[in-house]
């Protein structure tokens, strides 16, 4: 399975940040999320249905309060906070060095990117340089993590469709089988399967074990060969297409105002990718072709995520061949808890996590603990779209729309 795109990697100079192609959208018709359900005039009464928090299709513990006219949703109010762990308060009480393992648990299916955003914000605050080898390792990990995260999403999304696909479980099992191999790779690299603690301020914690690149390329080639199988299970299925096309459509303007990001935003025809507009880690040394779709519906989000898997595998494979020699840490080893003391100031750093723009806004007062550390989770912004997306749809579509946004409640609730 030769990767045809090897040639595009390792351009000698860092390319300039490029500008995205973005439409200038007008305000379209939107549902009113503040509708007074009592004033609804129709035949009969509205039924209030509580969906969740313990519901298999809410991808965690999300509660949706739905006002139904027959089977049609009139109003939807999401209730969050069932997984609120006070992470931002905790980050204020812990030192910079102690923070990384805490944010691992936020987005528990993409821990690498969580650490990366936090660590990059601290590095910006401190003015710390990261060696080139560490930046390569970070990028490879982030891209393989994206594939693992999208595989889990694809599997659970197929499961959301359930029996309609003639056994959504098949795709679920296949996707988890491939994801398992990526977890094995990370285990070989870091010793952990979920909460890696790979990134640290100034670089990465673990260097590549001998033979890891060979394993990684083999895994990438295998997964790349199998994604078309999953596509043939899903997008070649007329039931899947009719349940996803034209459902949960969101226009570009609303997506921007709500702060939707990543695949959810790119499915609305907005070509904005932080990997290209503000290149971080090693993305300035490799061409990134972000997937784009224009319809803004569930099917478009599915298309974007599947296309992103191919692209991430290509990027990771291309980078792993050219990992430069050198140190993996840009500062002297961190030996004490209070070793990192950035000067007073503020920094905001955002990266493109599998779910979208994962940002970290951190304020320092010169002490070894952050004065304020806010995480900007993409899932929280995606869930904010639900009151706009759900009215007018039916209960089976609610499940599909919610799944298509790919929310992770651990990250949304923090």
């Amino acid at each position, binding site marked *: 399975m030769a990767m045809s795109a090897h040639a595009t990697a390792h351009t000698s100079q860092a390319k300039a*940040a490029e*500008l*995205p192609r*973005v439409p*200038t*959208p007008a305000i379209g018709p*939107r549902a009113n*999320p*503040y509708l007074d359900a009592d004033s609804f005039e129709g035949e009969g009464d509205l039924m209030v249905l509580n969906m969740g928090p313990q519901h298999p299709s809410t991808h965690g513990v999300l509660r949706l309060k739905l006002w139904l006219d027959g089977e049609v949703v009139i109003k939807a109010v999401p209730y*969050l*906070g069932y997984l*609120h762990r*006070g992470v*931002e*308060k*905790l980050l*204020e*009480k812990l030192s910079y060095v102690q923070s990384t393992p805490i944010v691992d648990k936020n987005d528990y299916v993409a821990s690498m990117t969580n650490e990366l955003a936090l660590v990059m914000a601290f590095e910006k605050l401190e003015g710390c340089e990261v060696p080139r080898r560490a930046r390569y390792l970070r990028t490879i990990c982030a891209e393989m993590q994206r594939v693992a995260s999208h595989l889990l999403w694809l599997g659970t999304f197929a499961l959301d469709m359930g029996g309609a696909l003639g056994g959504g479980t098949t795709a679920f099992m296949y996707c988890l089988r491939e994801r398992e191999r990526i977890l094995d790779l990370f285990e070989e690299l870091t010793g952990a399967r979920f909460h890696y603690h790979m990134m640290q301020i100034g670089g990465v914690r673990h260097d590549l074990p001998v033979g890891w690149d060979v394993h990684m390329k083999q895994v990438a080639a295998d997964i790349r060969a199998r994604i078309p199988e999953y596509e043939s299970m899903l997008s070649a299925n007329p039931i899947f297409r009719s349940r996803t096309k034209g459902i949960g459509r969101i226009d570009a*303007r*609303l997506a*921007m*105002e*709500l*702060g939707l990001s990543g695949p959810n935003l790119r499915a609305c025809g*907005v070509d*904005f990718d932080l990997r290209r*507009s*503000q290149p971080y880690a090693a993305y300035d040394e490799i061409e990134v072709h972000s997937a784009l779709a224009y319809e803004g519906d569930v099917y478009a989000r599915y298309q974007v995520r599947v296309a992103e898997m191919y692209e991430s595998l290509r990027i990771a494979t291309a980078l792993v061949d050219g990992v430069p020699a050198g140190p993996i840490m840009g500062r002297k080893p961190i030996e004490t808890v209070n070793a990192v003391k950035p000067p007073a100031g*503020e920094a*905001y750093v*955002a990266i493109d996590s599998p779910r979208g*723009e994962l*940002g970290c*806004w951190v*304020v320092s007062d010169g002490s070894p603990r952050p*004065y*304020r550390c*806010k995480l*900007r989770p993409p899932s*929280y*912004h995606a*869930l*904010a779209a639900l009151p*706009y997306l759900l009215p007018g749809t039916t209960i089976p579509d609610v499940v599909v729309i919610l799944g298509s946004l790919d929310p992770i409640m651990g990250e949304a*609730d*923090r």
Partner: protein
Amino acid sequence: MIGQDVAQIAHERFGLESGELGPSVPRERLLEFASALCEAGYLYLVYISAMHHPATKNGEAEVPARYTVVYRVRDLARGLEFPFRCEVPLGTGVPSVASVWAGADWQEREAYDLVGPVFEGHPDLRRIMLPEDWEGHPLHRDYAINTPHHPWR
């Protein structure tokens, strides 16, 4: 990259100087400023957050406790960002910008819930992370991490 076009608007129309952290907009003109940003093409709301500063003694002068509400918006077409902020003393409301960016709704609810500033004119200002009957705002600097709560918490 910081949007210099808005920095100029802030300077000429509002008389505000934007440093690296963006201008500090007085609360009376916040909504007007937000609308001007939206018209200038900054349609993407990155985040709204807030922090609490307890009262401090600066020599003789006593600085009262205050909230800083921070905003960051982005023009995706040009790849420009613009941060700005609004400082209010405790007990004073901040105008809500939910009428300008729809996404401000949940952002302001989160800032209100965890940090505490009240957003005036918000369509639906309720707690979002914590239970409705929670007392206090945990991200206050003086909120102890082991604050006791009723048996089930």
